[in-house]
């Protein structure tokens, strides 16, 4: 089992008192800033505005958390920042789209008001499953073709990183070219799967307001995203902390050599890690597609960057940290714009990241898998 002591980058335990003082100062500064902002009229004046920003923040944060798991788990076992994970997510949005429209035949013209009842549940479950599978298989193939040869050849970490960026560019450009036209001087047409323009999701679920908090409507789509995300995160948490395979993942993350001496099959554990990370990203891709209504070759870029940030925020390599980091990042970047223009949204997110890393270089929950 992993040790959960919080340590600094140098390995010395942080004194609880200094830690507490740091947080108290930080929160006090934020509080004073907010008070001044609201009093002077710079910040959102209505409670409903804050609630609205919080609910959208949590919805997005849940999706970030699901993607962040893939980054953090792969980092845990391989110390690899898998930048191609955003493309694993992108493939999930397409797989979800084609499951809904082709497999279940749900199109905007056939079901102008969306579908309901048992059929809706079947469509959503099927789409989540197949999107997860498509992304999971993509991640496994990626590991087999791109990363395993590096591992066998003892490549440097820089080699891994550049390969990851290459795989990411390859996949997004491949989907850009899969537009049903001829490319690269080839005599045949490429399959029309993606292309440059976005493809629209049908309105699978008719949007309704379920209840209101301080006058802000909470919609079934938001509840769907959060509910599915929480269920998948709980299953994953159970998998990592309560199953043999999960224990294997944590063992490899902590000390690969000892784990292998103890009879843990490292290659198998790495494949499982990629698959599980891909599964979560695929599920997130489907939710993102249903929520925002589009799939596109570059759709993974921004959520990917943010999920990576979330993973670092929570402590890269730390599964629960990634979940916490995702939710926090979603909240922070949305609540942050209550006081300034939304063009500052990415700045806020990254400023918080830098601040956290200045005071807690290993992220909020530390770097160990299982911390």
């Amino acid at each position, binding site marked *: 089992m992993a040790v959960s002591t919080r340590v600094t980058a140098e390995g010395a335990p942080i004194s609880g008192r200094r830690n507490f003082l740091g947080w108290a100062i930080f929160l006090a500064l934020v509080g004073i800033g907010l008070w001044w902002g609201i009093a002077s009229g710079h910040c*959102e004046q*209505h409670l*409903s*505005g804050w609630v*609205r*920003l919080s609910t*959208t923040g949590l*919805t*997005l944060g849940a999706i970030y958390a699901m993607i962040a798991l893939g980054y953090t788990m792969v980092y845990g076992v391989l110390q690899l920042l898998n930048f191609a994970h955003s493309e694993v997510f992108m493939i999930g949005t397409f797989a979800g789209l084609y499951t809904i429209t082709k497999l279940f035949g749900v199109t*905007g013209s056939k079901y102008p008001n969306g579908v309901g009842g048992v059929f809706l549940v079947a469509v959503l479950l099927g789409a989540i499953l197949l999107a997860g599978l498509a992304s999971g298989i993509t991640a496994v193939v990626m590991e087999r*073709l*791109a990363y395993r*040869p590096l591992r066998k050849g003892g490549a440097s970490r820089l080699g891994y990183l550049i*390969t990851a960026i*290459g*795989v990411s*560019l*390859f996949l997004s*450009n*491949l989907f*850009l*070219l899969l*537009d049903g036209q001829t*490319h*690269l001087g080839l005599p045949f047409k490429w399959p029309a799967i993606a292309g*440059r*323009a*976005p493809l*629209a999701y049908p*309105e699978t679920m008719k*949007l309704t*307001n379920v209840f209101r908090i301080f006058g802000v*409507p909470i*919609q079934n*789509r938001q509840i769907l995203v959060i509910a599915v995300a929480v269920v998948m995160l709980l299953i994953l948490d159970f998998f990592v902390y309560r199953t043999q395979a999960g224990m294997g993942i944590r063992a490899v993350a902590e000390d690969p050599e000892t784990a292998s001496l103890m009879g843990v099959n490292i290659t198998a554990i790495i494949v499982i890690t990629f698959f599980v990370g891909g599964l979560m990203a695929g599920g997130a891709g489907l939710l*993102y597609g249903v929520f*925002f*209504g*589009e799939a*596109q070759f*570059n*759709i993974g870029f*921004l*959520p990917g960057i943010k999920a990576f940030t979330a993973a670092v925020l929570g402590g890269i390599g730390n599964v629960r940290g990634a979940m916490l980091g995702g939710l926090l990042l979603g909240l922070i*970047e*949305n609540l942050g*714009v209550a006081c300034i*223009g*939304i*063009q500052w*949204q*990415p700045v806020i997110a990254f400023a918080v990241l830098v601040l956290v890393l200045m005071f807690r270089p290993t992220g909020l929950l530390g770097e160990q898998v299982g911390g």
Partner: protein
Amino acid sequence: MLRVLALVAVAALVAGACSKKKTPTTGASSGGTTATKNVKIEFFGALSGDYKLLVIHGFQAAELAFEQANTGKFGKLPVKITIEGQDTGGSAEQASPLADKVVNDSSVVGIIGPAFSGESAGVGDRFDQAGIPFITPSATDDALATHGWTHWFRGVGNNSDEAKGAVPYIQNILAPNCTSVASDGTAYGHGLAAIVFNQLSDLSLSVKPEEQVQPGQKDYSALVSKVASAGCKVFFYGGYSPEGGLIRKQMTDAGLKDVVMVGGDGLKDDTFLSVSGKSGDSTIAACPCVSPSDVASGGAANADQITTFISDYKAKFGEDPGIYALEGWDIAQIYIAAFKAGKTDRAGITDFVRNVINFPGLAKTYSWEPDGELFPADRTMYLYQDKGGQWTFLGNAKDVSAPPA
């Protein structure tokens, strides 16, 4: 295996960067034996991708015009014209290498485009220094006229004109409690939003500071939350249709159905209609563009010519001419007129274009000021409204926005 992957990846990148549509217009000149010079006109704009539908009709209309010109339909020409489409994707980065190639090709004697403002600002200097005339059918940022380019001409009204079309409509017809403003931060989008903001402020109407989103994003929930908190009944968006359509959809999804969205020509294409779906209903677009079928049915003096154009266009491309088709056709006709007048080099053609007075196009007449802007009389602004998933012609902005008596 890895090497193969790497090679394919590199090849894919190269192919993506070099994608180009080349359409040598067929149909030998009727003269046959006389020595005709081969000249090229280049079209710069987003011919694929998200912004394609704002641009492609202008390109296709020009293609049609040159094809007919080569068959001798507009009289005997001393040249055989080829039009090449340079697919910029709407970005200055992609337009830049294409521009370098074009200026070095001596057979290129004229350019239609660049279609967007950002890319125009990015490559305009190179065209101007190379002495190639470049006439844009659709770039509306006011600042383009301030570069001192002597070979640049704008075939439509600018952002200030668009704002003058939109603002009176907001003031007199929508008469909201206040207006929220946002843009995509591009030369076009931010330019337009800033002018609208200033004009509304000058009229002492309540208007919220401009928010900016990133183009290419899918998630506009933060913007939607702010628009909801502001509580304004009108939302002005300066930007293009892929983002505008999503913002409109996400606003309606969040319960802001009653907030009327108003935008410029960047919204007025089929992408907006398909992306926003039913949510797009009631959206207003101020556009210097002329809708061919509406002008033809509205009893314009040249309705016959426009009707012929529409049927030729449909026969060739299998679709109705969309936004900026007439402008693309008209600019092609100006080049054809220059060729007919015996001007076949860059300098001669530029001179010809600069000196046309009231050139009779299908959309309007064309005469240019020294800075490359059209005469104010030629910069009519029209209003369109999304009604039931179609852009419906409301009419000349001045007439539509007149204060109720």
